[in-house]
């Protein structure tokens, strides 16, 4: 199987704090905690039918008889059927002077599904969950990440 393009749907968050220009002493476990928060906030929102990009509800399905039919509730629209798509969302952290968290899908199928959501494939409404270009994560997600990051900085740099 050809190596899928890991770069296609990924987003890197570089985190900094005003008082400290060098965060090399930030512990790996602390940054992992921040990454877990990011994932959890995204999952929570998507499961509740909220776009992690716009912060607004995903629009209703166009033809509820066709999809979702009997497979699942017609509202909220939460991109959840078996769970495989959302469970494919993972993070990679990088500690150092400017710590970062990269979020991406860890398999081709999930990547393809995100592409379908992004493009509105097969006439479905567009429902991407990874920001691209000038898009960004929703305000509430970023604020949750900021708060956890502040807390771990306070702990690691006491």
């Amino acid at each position: 199987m050809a190596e899928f393009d890991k770069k296609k749907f990924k987003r890197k968050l570089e985190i900094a704090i005003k008082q400290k220009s060098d965060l090399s002493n930030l512990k790996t476990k602390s940054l992992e905690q921040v990454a877990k928060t990011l994932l959890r906030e995204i999952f929570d929102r998507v499961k509740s039918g909220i776009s992690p990009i716009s912060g607004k509800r995903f629009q209703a399905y166009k033809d509820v008889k066709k999809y979702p039919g009997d497979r699942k509730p017609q509202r909220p629209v939460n991109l959840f059927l078996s769970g495989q798509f959302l469970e494919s969302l993972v993070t990679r952290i990088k500690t150092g002077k400017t710590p970062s968290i990269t979020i991406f899908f860890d398999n081709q199928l999930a990547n393809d599904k995100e592409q379908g959501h992004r493009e509105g494939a097969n006439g479905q409404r567009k429902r991407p969950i990874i920001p691209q270009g000038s898009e960004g994560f929703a305000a509430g997600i970023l604020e949750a990440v900021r708060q956890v990051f502040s807390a771990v900085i306070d702990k690691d740099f006491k």
Partner: protein
Amino acid sequence: MPLSNNKIFYEFNPFELAGIEEPEDSDDTKQKIADMVLEEVLNYVGKSSSPVAGEGWKKSLSPEYKKIKAKVSSNLSANMELYGGMLDALECVVNSNGNIELRITGDEEVSKADGHNNFSGLSSLPQRRFIPDEGQTFKREILSKIKSMAKGSDVTISEVSEEDDGGV
């Protein structure tokens, strides 16, 4: 009164809540806070939980309503959602007073919303408040985010798009 025939709402000033003076260039901050509040309220409701301090409701439905909802949806929890119209109508905006307003407008949706929130005192449904009434406020987690965003954070997050990123 935060209820009329065609609007049910909660109005607040985030800088007052944070106990600070409102800066001159606050429009962008207020909009971001409004966006965050809407997300958080929808998030709480989606988990069958109230975003209003001191309020809450059982996740389970009455047997009678469960039968009704089961004809439409396999989600049989009290998530304020059958066809989605009421929650689709929920918005959070910066109003003409320069305050933030969490609201539902439109006769039909306001009627449903008051059925759950019972600002009128006339609803016979179990109270499931997702909009704070006068004298109420949001749960601590939401308030904390409002105050933090109003005060501004020392933490900056830069999102790097794939074109700018040199490698995985």
